[in-house]
């Protein structure tokens, strides 16, 4: 009992989100008969306040207190969770702002969508904190079920429904496979606790049996981070979902998936081997498994993106490629890899959400997601074109933008671990990626529009949003030192146990 009470004091951001969730549901019911505009404004305001309070509290908690396990060792509140919490809150805040400006969500009652957003944000934090097989499965499913509903939110829209159905079928099969793998792992080790799993695996060699189990579990995690060959849902769902939801899926659940990946493999499947390095336990070479996943994911994502004509599909494949890059860092088997992933995700948040912000703003005027509809944007709105240029160059990883820093961290970690060949494949992939990002820019700057070309007008909120997203990308290099400090916190990952 005292354990539960004590745990609650380390659980403030989640509690704030749950409180905001309750208020949003009630406020949605009360304002049911009010005009849509005033009701939506009220609900957006409540959600924004809740998310912002959660961001502030999770920022304050970052790195100030030592690691501790919560709720009878179900969750661990340590540096890793500390780094991921602000990432989730920031993602949801930006997505909420995008939702206010999205044409697709205009004239739709947003109460349930906001309730789902708050639920997912809290569940993402549980995912990042879970150190128990039950909790991993439970939080992963909470995120999944809520995101299925968010994808299918436009219930009269055929594409939204179709995307949602594909998402839930793929999702249920992958998490089903993962659950089967978890049950077998439980049978092998006789415990559901990740630390217990590691202790039990360290005592014997399980070999191919364990590798089979890990492949099943990788299906569930791979589905969440959209890693090939578990990525088939990704392009369709990203295209069909309302664009703010797409933006959310491309960052939030992907980040949480990586948190689970790090926890499961680095905590449960490996033991410290001195000097911050880790060694696999149980006689299964899962490092090879992750390397294969990384290479396939990067290559497939980048090559498939070359062929796309729809910008949401292009960003879907681009997000698959970025997952591959981060998977490279996961193969490193040291704390440096964890830091690289955390830093990459923090930067990826701003560059990817930025690109989606431009897509949403452009959709307001063109009503289309085809890349061709961006022709003549340089004349119509230099501001939007420059912003898109910054986001895309950042995604490419070109200095002086922040994306370069992200790629630098990953490649440094990979090379330091002696995986030079993997880094070479990564660099080749980055070169391929430049082609499709530049293709979008070429259409915006060089191609001429055939019809009339009215200048684009933006509201103050649009400008604020763009500035909010552009600044971290441009000034990324200035924050080198502070980013280093943030990633230091993730070192405490291995403190418990």
């Amino acid at each position, binding site marked *: 009992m005292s354990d539960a009470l004590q745990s609650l004091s380390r659980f403030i951001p989640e509690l704030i989100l749950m409180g905001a969730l309750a208020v949003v549901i009630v406020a949605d019911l009360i304002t049911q008969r009010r005009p849509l505009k005033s009701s939506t404004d009220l609900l957006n305001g409540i959600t924004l306040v809740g998310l912002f309070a959660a961001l502030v509290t999770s920022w304050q908690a970052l790195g100030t207190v030592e690691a501790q396990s919560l709720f009878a060792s179900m969750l661990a509140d340590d540096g890793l969770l500390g780094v991921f919490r602000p990432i989730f809150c920031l993602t949801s805040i930006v997505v909420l702002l995008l939702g206010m400006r999205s044409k697709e969500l205009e004239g739709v009652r947003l109460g349930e969508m906001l309730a789902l957003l708050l639920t997912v944000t809290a569940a993402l934090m549980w995912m990042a904190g879970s150190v128990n097989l039950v909790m991993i*499965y439970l939080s992963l*499913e909470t995120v999944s079920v809520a995101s299925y509903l968010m994808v299918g939110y436009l219930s009269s829209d*055929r594409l939204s429904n179709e*995307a949602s*159905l594909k998402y839930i079928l793929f999702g249920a*099969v992958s998490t089903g496979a993962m659950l*089967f793998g978890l*049950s077998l792992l*439980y049978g092998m080790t006789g415990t559901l606790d990740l630390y217990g799993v590691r202790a039990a695996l360290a005592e014997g060699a399980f070999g191919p049996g364990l590798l089979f189990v890990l492949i099943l579990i990788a299906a569930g995690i791979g589905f969440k981070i959209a890693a090939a060959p578990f990525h088939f849902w990704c392009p369709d769902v990203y295209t069909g979902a309302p664009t703010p939801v797409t933006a959310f899926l491309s960052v939030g659940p992907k980040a949480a998936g990586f948190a689970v990946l790090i926890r499961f493999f680095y905590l449960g499947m490996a033991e410290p081997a001195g000097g911050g390095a880790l060694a696999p336990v149980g006689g299964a070479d899962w490092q090879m498994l992750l390397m294969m996943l990384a290479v396939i994911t990067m290559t497939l994502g980048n090559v498939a993106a070359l062929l796309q004509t729809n910008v949401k599909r292009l960003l879907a494949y681009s997000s698959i490629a970025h997952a591959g890059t981060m998977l490279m860092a996961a193969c490193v088997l040291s704390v440096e890899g964890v830091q690289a992933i955390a830093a990459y995700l923090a930067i990826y948040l701003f560059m990817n959400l930025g690109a989606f912000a431009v897509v949403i703003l452009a959709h307001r005027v063109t009503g289309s997601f085809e890349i061709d509809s961006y022709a003549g944007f340089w004349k119509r709105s230099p501001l939007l074109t420059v912003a898109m240029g910054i986001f895309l160059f950042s995604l490419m990883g070109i200095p002086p933008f922040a994306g370069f820093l992200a790629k630098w961290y990953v490649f440094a970690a990979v090379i330091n671990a002696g995986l030079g060949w993997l880094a070479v494949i990564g660099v080749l992939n980055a070169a391929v990626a430049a082609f499709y990002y530049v293709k979008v820019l070429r259409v915006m700057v060089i191609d001429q529009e055939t019809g009339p070309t009215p200048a684009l007008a933006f509201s103050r909120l649009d400008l604020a949003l763009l500035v909010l997203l552009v600044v971290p990308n441009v000034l990324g290099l200035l924050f080198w030192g502070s980013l280093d400090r943030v990633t230091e916190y993730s070192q405490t990952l291995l403190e418990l146990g």
Partner: protein
Amino acid sequence: MIPLEHYLYISAALFSLGVFGVLTRRNAVNVLMSIELIFNSANINLVAFSRFVEGALGGQVFALLVIVIAACEAAVALAIVMSLYRVVKHVNLDDAAELKG
């Protein structure tokens, strides 16, 4: 007493049947039924291991939670199927192919 192996044979068979169903069925509701088989195969594993390996209740509690989650997921999935049916008047997965490329 029935040995542990028999439970594992059953669960492996159920899992394979589930995966087979997911891959071959074209009707969304049939696919959902196959997915339930996958979940339940894991449940059999969990309960059997909890009895034979751990000797405590951890696996059984896990199985209960899985049942709850599976029910939620089925409810959401059927709601989505209904919603899609209202728009396109069928639930055939081969024809739900507006999104591709």
